[in-house]
């Protein structure tokens, strides 16, 4: 698999304790949160600093050894599933927050910093790091950057790519590359930072990330609107956007999801409702009050049965607890859960919701739909049992139809989960062959030995 002399060299770099080779440990680095077959690597290393990291990459380049970097292994597209001949580089020990600069509003962090840890540290200073992927309690900044992770606040605040000001990373040969800066503006060189975000470890291995911070909003108002038809709810989403209101969060839950959440958490949700919209506006207190009124009026005009405003933080927390419970509640229903994230232009949300219901019926499978309606990023969640081959085949067909539907509406295969292995075969449908060829040429030029997370995105 991997020559002993290379293992010895790796051990020399990181120390005996931080080189793992036993089969048991390899099994634990063979998967991530995507529903895909596991692949065991030949070794895993846990470097502590940039020097060690650089030496590992150079060694792998010299010996043609594939490298897959892994943070918390929570991604949903197979981006951290390694090669059998390759090694896994774990970022767990490179988890320092190097600097939080209040005057210039940026943070410099190592890739292994947990997203929620950074968000909490920044909040203590009255600052705000908005990207909040569902896995933020465990996901790492390195992983968020590599996958261009999104979250509930994408609609108003954007996603990870909107907060990466600069990066320092090792290229495939182990050279140290600096890109971007600590300044708000930066017009030198190629926008390599932009290229690196979402590159899933195929173009370089991150050492440091400079993140933009913003002032925390002064006020916020959360609301829940209840609907008797899902069409009315999705029309409301389109209505709010076209009224030029941009809520921080605008989430939808369908009836299937509502029932699952209520059975699971007894939060007091109306189980007979066809859909719920969970809405939060934030910003200056006067603007928040005005927008909340407008949103309320709009919801009622579009046919909401009722709309309730959170009266205090405790009520607000309950609303978002219900949303956060969605995936958990659905996950309890069946052994296998396939979480999709095909995304459409937001005005097409009503069409997409209808199409998803149709697809569920056509393939006779359970699909719970919830998600970031406000930015067009729904999460059709398919519940199945992977051991049931016949049903899983229908699931795969349904997924392909979801992809086709989203693309036909001018959408994308993935709003926030990335391409990885799971969507690589479908990328051509979205981008066309020449853009895949372009990407492959780019990779071949930067990584001639194809050691950086091979197989992801471009399929080779």
């Amino acid at each position, binding site marked *: 698999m991997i020559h002993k002399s290379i293992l010895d060299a790796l051990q020399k770099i990181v120390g005996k304790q931080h080189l793992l080779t036993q089969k048991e440990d390899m099994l634990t680095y063979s998967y991530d949160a995507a529903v895909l077959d596991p692949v065991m690597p030949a070794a895993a290393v846990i470097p502590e600093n940039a020097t060690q990291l650089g030496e590992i990459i150079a060694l792998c380049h010299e010996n043609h050894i594939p490298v897959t970097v892994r943070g*918390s292994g929570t991604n949903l597209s197979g981006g951290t599933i390694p090669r059998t001949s390759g090694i896994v580089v774990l970022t767990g020990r490179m988890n320092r927050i190097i600097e939080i600069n209040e005057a210039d509003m940026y943070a410099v962090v190592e890739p292994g910093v947990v997203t929620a840890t950074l968000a909490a540290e920044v909040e203590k200073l009255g600052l705000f790091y908005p990207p909040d992927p569902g*896995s933020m309690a465990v996901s790492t900044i390195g992983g968020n950057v590599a996958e261009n992770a999104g979250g509930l606040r994408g609609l108003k605040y954007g996603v990870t790519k909107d907060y990466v000001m600069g990066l320092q990373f090792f290229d495939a040969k182990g050279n140290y590359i600096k890109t971007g800066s600590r300044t708000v503006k930066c017009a030198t060189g190629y926008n390599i930072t932009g290229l690196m975000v979402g590159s899933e470890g195929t173009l370089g291995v991150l050492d440091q990330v400079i993140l933009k911070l913003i002032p925390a909003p002064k006020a916020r108002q959360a609301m829940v609107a209840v609907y008797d038809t899902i069409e009315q709810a999705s029309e409301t989403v389109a209505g709010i956007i076209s009224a030029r209101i941009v809520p921080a969060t605008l989430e939808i839950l369908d009836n299937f999801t509502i029932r699952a959440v209520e059975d699971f958490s007894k939060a007091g949700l109306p189980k007979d409702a066809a859909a719920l919209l969970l809405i939060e506006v934030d910003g200056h207190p006067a603007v928040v009050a005005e927008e909340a009124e407008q949103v309320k009026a709009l919801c009622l005009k579009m046919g909401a049965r009722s709309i309730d405003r959170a009266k205090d933080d405790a009520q607000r927390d309950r609303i978002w607890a219900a949303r956060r419970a969605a995936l958990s509640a659905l996950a309890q229903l069946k052994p296998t859960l396939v979480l999709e994230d095909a995304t459409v232009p937001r005005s097409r949300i009503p069409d997409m919701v209808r199409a998803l219901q149709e697809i569920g019926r056509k393939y006779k499978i359970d699909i719970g739909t919830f998600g970031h309606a406000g930015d067009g990023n729904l999460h059709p969640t398919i519940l199945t049992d992977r051991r049931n081959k016949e049903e899983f085949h229908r699931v795969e067909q349904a997924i392909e139809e979801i992809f086709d539907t989203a693309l036909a509406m001018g959408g994308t295969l993935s709003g926030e989960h990335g391409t990885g292995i799971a969507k690589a075969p479908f990328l051509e449908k979205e981008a066309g062959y020449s853009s895949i060829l372009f990407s492959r040429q780019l990779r071949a030029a930067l990584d001639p030995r194809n050691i950086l997370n091979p197989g992801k995105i471009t399929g080779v």
Partner: protein
Amino acid sequence: MAGMKELATLVKELEEQLVTCIRCGMCQSVCPLFEQTRKEADVARGKLALLTGLMDNIFTDPDGVNERLNRCLLCGSCAANCPSGVNVVEIFIKARAILAEYKGLSPAKKLIFRQLLANPGRFDAMVEWAGRFQGLFTKPSADAQGTSCARLISPLLANRHFMPLSTTPFHKTLPKKGYTSTGSGLRAAFFTGCLIDKIFPNVAKASLKVLSHHKVGVIIPPGQGCCGIPSLASGDRDSFTRLVDHNLALFEKEPFDVLVTACATCTSTIKKLWPTVYKNPSDVIQQKLRVLAEKTMDINQFLVDRVGIDSLKNFSDPAGSDPGPDIVTYHDPCHLKKSLGVAEQPRQVISAAGCQLKEMTGSDKCCGMGGSFNIYHYDLSSTIGTIKRENIEKTGCTTVSTGCPACMMQISDMLGKAGSSIKVRHPMEIYASRLEKNTP
């Protein structure tokens, strides 16, 4: 190894529970061990994958999986936070049993579990003699927690400040035929538990005082055994089942409304593991175990939810020279909060005793004890325990309270080593001591 296929078949018993893990990885955010090591094999997701690996028969021997499976505090933080509701603790306990049965217990464990623990009479006698002679081997360390440290250098004890065995275990203070008191309403059976009986008899005495104050009738059948969790944690399901049989028979003799314990771990074991892990129960036994589990309650929960308590008035200090209420911080035992959802009641007991409660950061973070984890992985256990100690100290409290004698041991060890003057008390001790002060 030829038998690996057979082992795979045995692990298949867990398949329906194993498949519920969707590998989301959320357990990484709460696992006290993973926080220290950041290795996937140390967190629930990794261990569940390893068991799936055994089931798929991909290993040549079971030792690697067994070793990793035992690196776990069984604190249940993962299960309490699992989106998919994977019953992690039950799976790990059953898996340890399957592996131990397949591999055979080590001779030392066989001696402890089969010859001693599973024979309550013999165990009590041995511990009693050990208690009389322990002064020869240890020296008391003059600290607020009342711990001892080893006189002779022992690799097993290292520099632990362990709680000395009581010279008189609790059961020795009771009549030979057991203890019975009449009350005016509810009747409680009291399950003592090994650690309280042999190391913290004061907790049991305090519990009796409190129950009697509230006019609860109490029965304590003689000859009680261990709840079985030490055997189970080492995979010895046979000894566990024998202990359950023994205890079940004892508590059948007289009627009672509630089975109370002052030990979080015993409560959780009786409620969660007796009905699920008992080996091949008959329908009758199964039904008895379910009924008993339903009737079992933590003593704090019993007092607050069933008996009802008011704040105790401070009669002891009419002259007003009282230095003010004790500042108490409360540590949530994993087996109370995460396993049984009991968190508010012990705090109410402490407040009712007139103490000022001051929350620590991470009050529900595991103390790092984890039963035998503390013995086999003392360094890791201490690192986790040190975080707990620092959080306790930062509150500026005079006393730390917790509803589990195992946590009390670990916290005493941590505070003792650091030379802290903070006392470690069970909520029942705090409450009983207020009752005492109020009695002229």
